[in-house]
């Protein structure tokens, strides 16, 4: 069996004239926690739905657990957990009924796992889903997805609209149930702190295109900021991610700065500094213009 749980090859999807996902290719190795980042409308949900075979791509293909996304057999589906955006649940069912309902679909249902997550979120089996808070709903959705002990967990913005306590509870559950083992997770999120805590790998989608795909620590150590005097002319450097004017200085975020490029900047009097993950991600999401050399597809970034 392939070591890659997810493989996307040139996945592209149009809605009418509008391109939602443009030629996206990447691979997620087994045991990896991958964070899919990008602004609202950048194509994260569309990409996830195509990977799961819920949406047909206009072009390109993908495999998941070794099966074509459009032909995942039920046996393999049973090894995939999916939590859709907003944690949708049947509102008329109670928490206990939801569990009873869901468990029938999964031969691998582990009630101990289910119980521990439901208890972690302090949920009551007799509460109707419709009267749960957002955080509680997230807890139930996560418990339903994790109880079958899936090999692959796909979470579409699990922390959307949650308070800090619920958000932390979700992280704790993910680490407790999934971390360090063979379980693979693909999650989309806007919470950079969560990404720092749990992600092994970071994928950044910007305007439908994958602009970075690297190990998180690789991204952190290979993206740097150079600050130069504004009066000097705009430098042409390989790997430039974004430029930003601030006061009298020009801030350049550069990925994989080569010695020549970095040397030229430093010789021109630039100050060099490390960036935070959030700085790096924002730089990727606020850049404009043509595709630039970045850590996307770097072999050094492979797990």
């Amino acid at each position, binding site marked *: 069996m392939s070591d890659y749980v997810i493989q996307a090859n040139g996945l592209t999807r149009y809605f009418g004239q509008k391109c939602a996902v443009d030629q996206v290719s990447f691979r997620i190795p087994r045991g990896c926690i991958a964070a899919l980042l990008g602004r609202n409308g950048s194509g994260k949900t569309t990409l996830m739905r195509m990977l799961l075979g819920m949406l047909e791509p206009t072009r390109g293909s993908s495999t998941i657990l070794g099966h074509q996304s459009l032909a995942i057999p039920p046996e393999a589906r049973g090894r995939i957990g999916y939590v859709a955006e907003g944690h949708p649940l049947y509102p008329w069912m109670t928490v206990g009924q939801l569990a009873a309902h869901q468990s029938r679909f999964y031969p691998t249902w582990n009630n101990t796992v289910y119980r521990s997550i439901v208890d972690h979120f302090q949920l009551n089996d007799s509460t109707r889903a419709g009267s749960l808070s957002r955080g509680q709903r997230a807890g139930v959705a996560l418990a339903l997805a994790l109880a079958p002990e899936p090999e692959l967990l796909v979470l579409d913005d699990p922390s959307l609209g949650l308070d800090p306590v619920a958000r932390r509870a979700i*992280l*704790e559950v993910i*680490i407790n149930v999934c971390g360090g083992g063979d379980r693979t997770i693909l999650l989309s999120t806007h919470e950079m*702190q969560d990404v720092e805590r*749990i992600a*092994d790998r970071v994928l950044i989608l910007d305007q439908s295109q994958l602009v970075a795909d690297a190990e998180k*620590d690789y991204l952190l150590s290979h993206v740097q900021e150079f600050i130069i005097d504004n009066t000097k002319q705009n430098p042409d450097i390989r790997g430039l991610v974004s430029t930003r004017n601030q006061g009298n200085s020009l801030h350049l975020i550069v990925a994989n700065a080569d010695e020549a490029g970095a040397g030229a900047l430093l010789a021109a009097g630039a100050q060099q*500094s490390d960036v*935070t993950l959030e700085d790096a991600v924002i730089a990727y999401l606020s850049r404009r213009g043509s595709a630039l050399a970045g850590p996307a597809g770097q072999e050094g970034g492979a797990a």
Partner: protein
Amino acid sequence: MAFDLRISTGSSTPIFRQIIDQVRLAVATARLKEGDALASVRALAEQLVVNPNTVAKAYAELARDGVIATHQGKGVFIAARRPIYTSAERLRRLEPALDDLVREAIALGFSTDDVQKLVQTHFRKMAGRKDGES
């Protein structure tokens, strides 16, 4: 045990590096001594709410540098202190911190004597050693 690891997000120092730095500091300041047990990878990951791979990465580097030793089935312990670096390498590793210290001292107008006294005080406080001898 008075050793409490804390990590912060939103830093340009990766979390695995923060763990390494804090264990090293605790060993250097004798808050952690030879034979002291550290939390397992899983337990520390849960305590800090971080990916276990991150903790494993930090422990692997600490083990490679001889700071900790893993005994199969028993856990992770602080290893006996042994010089694993050449004197040139030790100097190279200290150099950046010295640069920072001296630069700040000059900028703030401290004399060499002031700095020496301060260094001695800190040595006593942190490492429990007198007069900066090693």
